[in-house]
């Protein structure tokens, strides 16, 4: 019983001393942060500040030069992506590249084929198409309009982003990393996705959001991490972080107020 208390207190994700260099460029340097279960962390920073590299490091798409990533107390540093997913971390990509020639719901067949899903459903996948259609309805594909049956290539960007979110949700992750989910979307489209993320939060999912759309992010984020040149320059509540002079200087520049 004591052990269970310990895991409840320990953070879901702990990143310590994480460093990644590409040739002479340091993309992420000596980064430390902790993420408790059920929280939504926003990661912000100017272009090229190492946000996407951080996602790639956590999800195993690149290996760090130094440092350690622990998920549920397990060292997952340098694991290949499919093993990281198996532990319960899933991600979306900033550049959505669905299988354009397939109907939208068929795009979800691949994540639903994952060994993780098989494990969680007790060895049986069930009817993947039915599960896929339910998932798409959850992210706002109107069933009455048969949007899920349209070819992914024929869908507007807003639906493609939601399809990307559904792909990540299909893996039933504990931690979802959303890499600039709102980029390239209209205000109305963003407004329709925010409730989906809030719902995920209520379901107890832990979420990391890389975002440039600060207004929408701050409304749902529990905490914010600010990166600049791969370094953490601030961390804490959104309102406090934005008051920090270092952040204003680096991120907002003259547009600060």
């Amino acid at each position, binding site marked *: 019983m004591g052990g269970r208390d310990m895991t409840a207190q320990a953070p879901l994700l702990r990143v310590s001393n994480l460093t990644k260099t590409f040739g002479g460029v340091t993309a992420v340097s000596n980064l430390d942060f902790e993420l408790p279960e059920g929280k939504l962390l926003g990661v912000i920073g100017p272009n090229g500040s190492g946000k996407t590299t951080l996602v790639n490091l956590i999800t195993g798409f690149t290996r760090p030069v130094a440092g350690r990533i622990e998920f549920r107390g397990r060292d997952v540093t340098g694991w*290949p992506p499919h093993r990281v997913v198996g532990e319960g971390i899933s991600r979306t*990509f900033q550049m959505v*590249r669905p*299988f354009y020639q*397939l109907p939208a719901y068929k795009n979800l067949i*691949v*994540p*639903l*084929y994952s060994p993780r899903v098989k494990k969680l459903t007790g060895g049986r996948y069930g009817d993947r198409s039915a599960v896929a259609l339910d998932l798409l309805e959850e992210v706002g594909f109107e069933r009455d309009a048969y949007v899920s049956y349209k070819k992914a290539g024929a869908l507007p960007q807003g639906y493609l982003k939601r399809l990307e979110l559904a*792909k990540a949700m299909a893996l039933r992750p504990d931690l979802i990393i959303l890499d600039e989910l709102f980029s390239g979307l209209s205000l109305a489209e963003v407004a329709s996705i925010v409730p989906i993320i809030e719902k995920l939060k209520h379901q107890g999912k832990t979420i990391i959001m890389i975002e440039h759309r600060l207004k929408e992010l701050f409304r749902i984020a529990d905490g914010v991490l600010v990166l600049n040149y791969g370094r953490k320059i601030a961390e804490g509540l959104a309102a406090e972080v934005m008051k920090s002079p270092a952040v204003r200087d680096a991120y907002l520049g003259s547009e600060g107020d």
Partner: protein
Amino acid sequence: MKKRKERIDRGIKVRAQDIFALTSYREMLYLLVPGAIPVVGLLCFAPMLSNYWREVIISTAIYALLAISWDMLMCAGLLSLGQSLFFGIGSYLAGSLNHYLGLPPILTIPLATIGGGLICTLLLLPVLRLRGIYFAMVTLVLPLMLSRLVEATRILGGTEGLTGLTPFPNQLTAVFLIQIVLLVTLFGFRRIKGSDYGLVITGISDNDRSVMSAGINIQWYKAQVVFLGASVGSFAGAFGTHMDMFAGMPGFALDYSIMPVAAAVVGGVGTFFGPLIGAFILVPLSEALRALGALRIVFYGLFLVIFVVGIPEGIFPYIQRKYQQVERWVDVT
């Protein structure tokens, strides 16, 4: 007035979807006839042919198997220029089992099929990470290396090869054996590609990062695809060996690498029917042109260019489109 071509699915195609096909014989025939053509064509006409053309059919079927195997690898984004690797390994494996251990073809062929698949998969395992032209280069070099290895070390009969192997009891048995295997491979691979497993495989070639982030070990799936393709290629090799009663360095010849690619490109990549059609056009064509002597290659090349330029999508996708859709010109306003 500008016009553009509009393509609409035929009514019968839509009516024959899903369970609704069972409502009438016409819809059922619409679905069944395309599949029945290769089955009837292969199994019924081969016995009527002369001995010479049966030989041609056998060698066509060998190339067709290699082409379908190539297409399977292509589904996972693996561009192979070394189908002769599969052919050669299968050929030497069946040859040695027959020559050194005295096993009959009924055992050597299945063993060489599975064993060849395993050996080729192990050989290609280190380079499965490579994509596109890099993978292609390695597959091109491997059979050349192996044939020089046989020549230099004089193992497995060296340059003379293994001769006097057990032949098939008669020509008709051989024809039926390879045609049945060809049909099973064709429909089996099409079924695999149409399944959820097939979606994962084609997903790897479309966008491997997306498949990786779905928690799927793409190297393991690529290895499975190589095993499937290599087994089929090795079967072709083992079969060819018992047909010619000989296993040797020609098994690694460039012919077995280039012809399948040409057949698949002419017939339509990614359809499995396409490579079959391609092989059944190109190989008999090459035989028919034999009378032209030295000019044979010129005309053969000309035909290839005409096909590729005339129907760049491939013969099978072209026929399939005509079968499923109507085309008409509409005004653009």
